[in-house]
């Protein structure tokens, strides 16, 4: 075997021997590195300056954090506030948890939206477009975290949810809440980097954290990630959501629609032809009339 033959043979082997299973042209798509925020609940001091910064940025209701005693009860985000901080009493003392849209990797709300008003942007934030939305509230039904909120008291209602300060991101700034955090509890970046930082914190202080990063895989994974010192179900998180991205639950159904639309009309037409009793009787008559039977 000379050198040339060897090269040809090895080239054939490398092409034929290891088939490229990924037949979709993955390199044709632009890489989608989503941004997100890492929330370290062990660092949060419950000052609620993120609530104020958020509401000021989005011209929502600005809470009076010095005197409203809002931490006394567990609050939900609302049509007036995109983010809230809650206080939980746990085995390791008081824990403060910021709540807002998690900006899922595969958002159920965006898959539910029939006008693409709820949109997963390439950069990562899930945004809402009031020029498209028809107010059907199917996104609210679908979101496993119950994040989208609706303005029931308005004749021209909006769907209200955190958009990770999409406008600010495009100007190259960080989300308002991240910038306002005095305790360094929030960290903005690409999810890949944030995951490494989160893992590093867990491994280097194994006693300070539960060994789980909420948002790594929940409902398919989200842009926002949480670290905690206590199990997540003790600080207001749902831990029964599974790791399947929620749009997957409707995927089989949506994809099989054309199959039904190809198959069923043909089947019905066939049944209609096959049940034509009159035609059958007429042919019988023709048979007898033509005298073959005689």
């Amino acid at each position, binding site marked *: 075997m000379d050198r040339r033959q060897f090269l040809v043979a090895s080239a054939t082997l490398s092409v034929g021997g290891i088939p490229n299973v990924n037949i979709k042209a993955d390199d044709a798509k632009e890489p989608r590195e989503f941004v997100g925020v890492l929330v370290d609940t062990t660092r949060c001091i419950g000052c609620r300056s993120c609530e104020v910064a958020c509401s000021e940025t989005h011209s929502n209701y600005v809470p009076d954090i010095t005197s409203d005693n809002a931490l006394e009860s567990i609050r939900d985000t609302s049509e007036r506030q995109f983010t809230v901080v809650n206080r939980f009493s746990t085995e390791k003392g008081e824990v403060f948890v910021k709540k807002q849209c998690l900006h899922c990797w595969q958002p159920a709300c965006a898959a539910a939206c*029939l006008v693409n008003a709820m949109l997963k942007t390439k950069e990562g934030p899930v945004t809402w477009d009031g020029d498209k939305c028809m107010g059907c509230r*199917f996104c609210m*039904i679908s979101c496993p975290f119950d994040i989208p909120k609706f303005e029931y008291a308005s004749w021209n209602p909006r769907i209200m949810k955190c958009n990770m300060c999409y406008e600010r991101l495009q100007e190259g700034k960080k989300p308002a809440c991240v910038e306002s955090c005095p305790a360094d509890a929030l960290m903005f970046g690409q999810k890949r980097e944030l995951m490494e930082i989160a893992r590093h914190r867990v491994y280097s202080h194994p006693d300070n954290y539960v060994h789980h990063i909420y948002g790594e895989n929940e409902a398919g994974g989200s842009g926002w990630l949480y670290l905690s010192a206590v199990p997540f179900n003790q600080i207001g998180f749902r831990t029964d959501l599974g790791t399947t991205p929620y749009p997957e*639950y409707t995927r089989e159904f*949506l994809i099989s629609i054309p199959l*039904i639309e190809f198959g069923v009309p043909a089947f019905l037409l066939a049944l*209609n032809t096959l*049940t034509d009793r009159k035609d059958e009787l007429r042919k019988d008559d023709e048979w007898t009339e033509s005298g073959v039977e005689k």
Partner: protein
Amino acid sequence: MSTAAIPSNELVRFGKFFLDELKPRGKWITPFNVISIPVILLGLVILYFRFTQGLGSVTNLSQQYPFGFWIGFDVMTGVALAGGAYVLCFVVYVLRLEKYHSILKVTILNGLLAYVFYSGALVLDLGRPWHIINPIIGNSFGYNSVLFLVAWHFLLYTGALFLEFSPTIAEWAHWEKLRKFLTSLTLGTVIVGITLSMLHQSGIGAMFLMAKPKIHPLWYSEYIPLLYFVSSIFGGLAMVIFEGTISSKVFSNLIGAKTHHSHEDVILGLGKGAAITMFVYYFFLAFIFMHGEKWKLLNGPWGYWYLVEVIGFVLIPCFMFAYGVRNRRFGVIRVAAIMTVLGVILNRQNVCLIAYNWYVPNKYYPSWEEIVVTLTVVFVEVWVFRWVVTRMSVFSKE
């Protein structure tokens, strides 16, 4: 064969004819009118507030319960119970069972009006109804959404039902050529209509697939689309029996003697179909229950409530249909039909409202305004139905 081909004096004639037909006939003071007119007027007042002050001013909808009675009852249930139209079209046009031809037109009319009014009630519930055109004209197609499929299929199927009914309208307007042309389209529209029905009846169920963590596990399964489709078959059949019973009493002067006589035979056939479909549906439920290993969930109020629905409103009416058909007991069949209709209503309310967010302490219940508006929609539909059947030849005169 478009209307443009019809000379203008024909249009003038039709205009006069139509105005003439609009005038009410018969007595004004009937029990139905006395009840329905105040309700409709009150409903319109409520709708005025709904469109000026927002949904929250008249409904009990909340952030936990974004779908309320208007969606859960009007749209979800109304569409399911209108399933009789596609089932009967299948039986008459595809299987060619001529026996059921006598009730076909009225069933199609019922289906058409149900789609126009009940899926039309969706507009009342939309926060920004002026954007309803968006998914249709194509400036923002959300193909990824189940609701996109449902919306388009609603629209197309309403069109198909209209085409199926249109020969009767052409006959009423004395457009003989147009009627012949429209009749020639029937088989095509029927086949398309059945396909569209299969998809949107199941699509309404598929809308809840992503609400997995919120619906009580006894009601949630990945087979919800199939369950919704099958229950629309027997729900539709039961509704046809129920409506037929009422129509044959209220409009008995419009129905021919032969049809009146063969009605018993038709009801037996429909009852038989309903019994078998419900039997299959019951086994679907048992199969899903068993595969989900939901034994433990039966203990407790939610389990009992589930059993009420499955035993009380599926299995028992199924047996009642079977008993009524075998022994020709029409009273039993009618009661079974009413129970089946209630059962479909109950099932849709369970998935959409009652077992939805079942762990939330402040449950949703409809406000009186929501109920009045729902009644308004139903009454207006009955008014239009009455107007059509007293003017067009919907019931078989034979």
